[in-house]
């Protein structure tokens, strides 16, 4: 895609930024090390002159043995290609570095997360508050020296289980024992939650407005959620309104937070596989895919041919089932209660039946393994997939298209609503369908093909208006493209092994870092894994697409009516299991 080969690009970057960037020398690491003081300058040059315009992932890492904290940035070019990785090491006692929000607004929620989890301060961040933990929480939970309630042992497997394991119910052990700390001088009775005030203050002064027509109006704050039928889970939006018009809106998340990443760092590499199912629980297969790729990159293995095809087939079926779900529930958000939703999820049901027959579970599939998949297709299932893909699903997509796309009510509510222009979509690191509906033809399956996606003939679905209607249409387009891929994969799938090497319950993962991303149904899903050669990952970070796609929610909603906020949120397609992790 790029006219210049990678080596010259690298040389050019080094020529321009040689004094700011130093080669990363740790074994298994890639990219550059950059001083905190020169981070903004380097990032600006990379963005403006080298087209690294997509800041995909910001990860905090605790390098406890070196006494440092680290921030890792993964930058991509929307014209395609691999990552440019920047590492910044910070002292543990006073970790702070300049925020990149002014250059990449998409870093806003990610930097807040790194602050929340590691206590890394981002100078110049517009709204640096806790995001997943609650205000008033003491400590930085992802730091290695922070121990959670129910803390048993540094890494799994726990010694208490075998050979002398007499079961105890974990609930019976006092969760608020010695492993819960309160700040000095804290009393529960005297505690006033400051978080809400900080949240409301983050909107700035709410001035009495006036709607321009001479009417005297007041601005007001409205909370939608956390318990609200339109928020797809426990999710809250705080909106400043002028009449019915939205002046500003902010997402409040973390109600479902269980520190998936901390759990992931206690787990062994394999144990994380079923946990990834619980991220975006609508698409456990693409979560499996991303995580398997990240660890396989570190291990340096590839699955055998048949397993590659099985992965593609499962991932694309998962995409169709997600998009059917999306379309059904977008219409629910629009007020078309449950008729479209039930029509759409009928065929999702047939896909889930297949998942159950193949993986053993409808949603928590836990199907991918490092270097393969858990088991081959049982007898008859391949035929069932063929029948579904060839006969039933195309008909279903056409039916939904005819049923909904022309409806004047849908068009009236969706066209021109929640517009996100292409340059803003890139800046916000919006992912997947949200990005592509804004006219950016960026699909990881094409930009940096993983698995065997480079063998298939399909188009990257693009729509140009960036409104809710295009975000609806693009899902229909993507389902049709998925069917194309499925047709080819089902035609070409070879016989053979499904696992490289022997299936091991304890894999040996060489030290190093890896970042693997897949184009999941919700967008770019990334896994950043750091291994230090031990059975448990040192760092396990998820780049959740629906969390990051929430960053532009405010921009999409401004100036719209309050009723449209629900639809705009629906058009992003979030899953709270993934947003809150």
């Amino acid at each position, binding site marked *: 895609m790029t006219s210049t080969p990678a080596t010259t690009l690298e040389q050019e970057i080094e020529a321009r930024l040689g004094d700011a960037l130093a080669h990363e020398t740790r074994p298994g690491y890639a990219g550059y090390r950059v001083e905190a003081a020169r981070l903004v300058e380097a990032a600006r040059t990379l963005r403006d002159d080298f087209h690294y315009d997509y800041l995909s992932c910001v990860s905090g890492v605790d390098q406890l043995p070196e006494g440092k904290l680290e921030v890792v940035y993964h930058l991509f070019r929307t014209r395609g290609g691999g990552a440019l990785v920047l590492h910044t090491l910070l002292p543990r006692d006073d970790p702070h570095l300049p925020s990149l929000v002014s250059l990449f607004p998409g870093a806003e929620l990610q930097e807040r997360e790194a602050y929340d989890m590691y206590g890394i301060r981002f100078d110049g961040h517009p709204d640096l508050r806790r995001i997943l933990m609650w205000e008033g929480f003491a400590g930085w939970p992802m730091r290695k020296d922070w121990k959670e309630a129910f803390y048993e042992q540094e890494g*799994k497997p726990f010694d208490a289980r075998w050979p002398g394991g007499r079961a105890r*119910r974990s609930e019976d052990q006092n969760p608020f024992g010695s492993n819960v700390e309160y700040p000095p001088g804290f009393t529960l009775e005297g505690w006033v939650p400051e978080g809400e005030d900080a949240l409301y203050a983050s909107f700035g002064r709410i001035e009495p407005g006036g709607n321009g027509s001479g009417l005297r109006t007041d601005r007001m704050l409205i909370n939608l959620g956390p318990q609200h039928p339109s928020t797809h889970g426990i999710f809250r939006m705080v909106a400043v309104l002028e009449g019915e018009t939205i002046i500003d809106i902010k997402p409040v998340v973390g109600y479902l937070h269980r520190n998936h990443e901390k759990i992931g760092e206690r787990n062994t590499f394999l144990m994380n596989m079923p946990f990834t199912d619980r991220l975006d629980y609508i698409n456990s297969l693409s979560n499996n895919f991303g995580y398997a790729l990240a660890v396989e990159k570190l291990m340096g293995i590839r699955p055998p041919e048949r397993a590659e095809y099985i992965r593609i087939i499962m991932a694309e079926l998962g995409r169709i089932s997600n998009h059917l779900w999306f379309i059904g529930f977008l219409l629910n958000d629009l007020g078309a209660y449950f008729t479209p939703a039930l029509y759409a999820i009928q065929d999702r049901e047939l896909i889930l039946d297949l998942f159950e027959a193949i993986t053993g579970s409808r949603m928590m599939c836990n199907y991918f393994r490092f270097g393969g998949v858990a088991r081959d297709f049982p007898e008859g299932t391949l035929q069932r997939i063929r029948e579904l893909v060839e006969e039933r699903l195309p008909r279903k997509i056409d039916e939904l298209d005819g049923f909904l796309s022309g*409806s004047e009510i849908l068009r009236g509510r969706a066209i021109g609503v929640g517009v996100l222009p292409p340059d803003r979509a890139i800046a916000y690191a919006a992912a997947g369908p949200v990005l592509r509906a804004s006219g950016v033809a960026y699909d990881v399956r094409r930009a940096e093909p993983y698995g065997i996606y480079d063998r298939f003939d399909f188009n990257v679905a693009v729509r140009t208006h960036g409104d809710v209607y295009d975000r609806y249409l693009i899902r229909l387009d993507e389902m049709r493209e998925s069917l194309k891929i499925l047709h080819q994969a089902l035609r070409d799938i070879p016989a053979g092994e499904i696992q490289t090497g022997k299936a091991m319950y304890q894999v040996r993962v060489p030290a190093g870092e890896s970042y693997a991303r897949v184009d999941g149904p919700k967008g770019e899903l990334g896994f950043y894994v750091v291994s230090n050669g031990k059975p448990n990952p040192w760092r396990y970070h998820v780049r959740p697409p629906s969390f990051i796609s929430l960053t532009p929610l405010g921009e999409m909603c401004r100036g719209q009516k309050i009723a449209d906020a629900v639809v705009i949120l629906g058009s992003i397609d979030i899953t709270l299991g993934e947003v809150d992790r």
Partner: protein
Amino acid sequence: MYGLGIVKGLTTTLRHFFETYLDDLRWLGKGRYGTPQGIQHRSSKNVRGLFTIQYPEEKIPVPEEFRYIPFLIHEEGANGEQQDRCTACGICAKVCPPQCIWIVRTTDSATGSPVPAPAEFYIDIDICMNCGLCAEYCPFDAIKMDHDYEIASYDRRQAHIFDKQRLSRPVSYYAAIRPSNYASEEEARKEKEARKAKAQAAA
């Protein structure tokens, strides 16, 4: 004309409405509801009209690979004695992601050395996430995933820790719920034994 899109959409709804009754008529007397073939039809690609399975009166038969809460397998002797397949090697407890398996290994009372059999075996089913890794990595085919998903109970405390007694099932049960898995494992086992016997004969 404005409204045409809505009318077009509503024809889809109308078609669904009629299909529901047409399919009922087509199946008249053939048992669309409450019969195995009716349930099978309503979860197949050919279904038109109503999809719903009326649980619990009707149940979709679970596929062989379906997994829900592990169980332990014991062999049955001729006079009813039970021989656990489990050797208390602990691999299932080590691979278990939520760490819900607890095993006490048997020790020889005379010598104090370990004996390859479980003295106690617990699974905390509150915590079990039904991932099936224990069954997948057990080298002795001693722990397998069950099909029985209706395990609601009134006690949510101690009764949710299944002990060895509660977990143990005969091989015949396993062969009944997972016939093709069972057959392929038996075949692999026989092959292995034949190879072993051959090697011994050669030596």
